[in-house]
């Protein structure tokens, strides 16, 4: 019975993903990504990972996608929402990605024991919480440090250095000239 929601969510996700990579408009592509992420969240829900689905919506759609849109706005010459996005090399890329999919699909189909029914009940949020501070506490701590580092790193990388490089020459003006200008 779960097949219908699964199939639906899968279709939506796939279609959106294709639009992400093929859309000629960058903003549209970002928006299609949002839909793909939503589809993925639905899939998570169908798979019994409700906590994960929530996190997905919050962080990915709410955070990442927003950030991306902002990024687009900052860095592209555009007028309004009409942001062109070119793409080339379709053929070779298509060949490679199709080949990759074929290999993966073949590997999956060749692996036995993948069609069994679920072995146990789905984990609850409580279970996840226990796992995070219990078995996987080290990873948990490390990831938090990583997040901090990433945040700091992003700030440092992206900040504007003042003064701007081409304005530095003003500082080399001798003190006498400054005094002269001040008079």
């Amino acid at each position: 019975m779960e097949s219908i929601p699964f199939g639906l969510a899968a279709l939506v996700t796939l279609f959106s993903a294709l639009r992400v990579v093929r859309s000629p408009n960058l903003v549209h592509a970002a928006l299609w990504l949002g839909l793909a992420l939503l589809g993925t969240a639905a899939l998570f829900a169908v798979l019994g990972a409700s906590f994960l689905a929530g996190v997905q919506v919050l962080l990915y759609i709410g955070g990442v996608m927003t950030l991306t849109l902002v990024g687009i706005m900052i860095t592209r010459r555009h007028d309004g929402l009409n942001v062109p996005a070119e793409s080339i090399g379709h053929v070779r890329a298509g060949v490679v990605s199709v080949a990759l999919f074929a290999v993966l699909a073949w590997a999956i189909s060749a692996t036995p024991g993948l069609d069994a029914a679920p072995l146990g009940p789905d984990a609850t949020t409580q279970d996840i919480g226990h796992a995070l501070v219990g078995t996987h506490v080290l990873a948990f701590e490390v990831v938090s440090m990583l997040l901090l580092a990433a945040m700091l790193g992003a700030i440092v990388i992206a900040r504007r250095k003042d003064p701007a490089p081409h304005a530095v020459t003003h500082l080399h003006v001798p003190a006498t000239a400054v005094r002269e200008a001040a008079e």
Partner: protein
Amino acid sequence: MTLSSCLVLASALFSIGIYGLLTRRQAIAVLLSVELMANAANLVFASFGHFRGGPTGQTFALFAVALTVAEVAVGLALVILFYRSHGDTQVDLARELRQ
């Protein structure tokens, strides 16, 4: 819905992401493709988590999400920097290694 069908779906998403990675000329568009690929990976984690039981699948998916978020943040910062020095975010413009 079986594990194998979930995995095949994830593979398809991943491949689409690869296609985007290879095709797109805008840096941000490349980041979008990378997002897709990360999502496919999370899907694999969640699938195994559902079919094998236990919290491990979702836990690792959470970690992956955290990592991906960090990656996007830093990536965007880099894109901004790139934009400042090259005036555009075309990936082709990163030619400094070219003779």
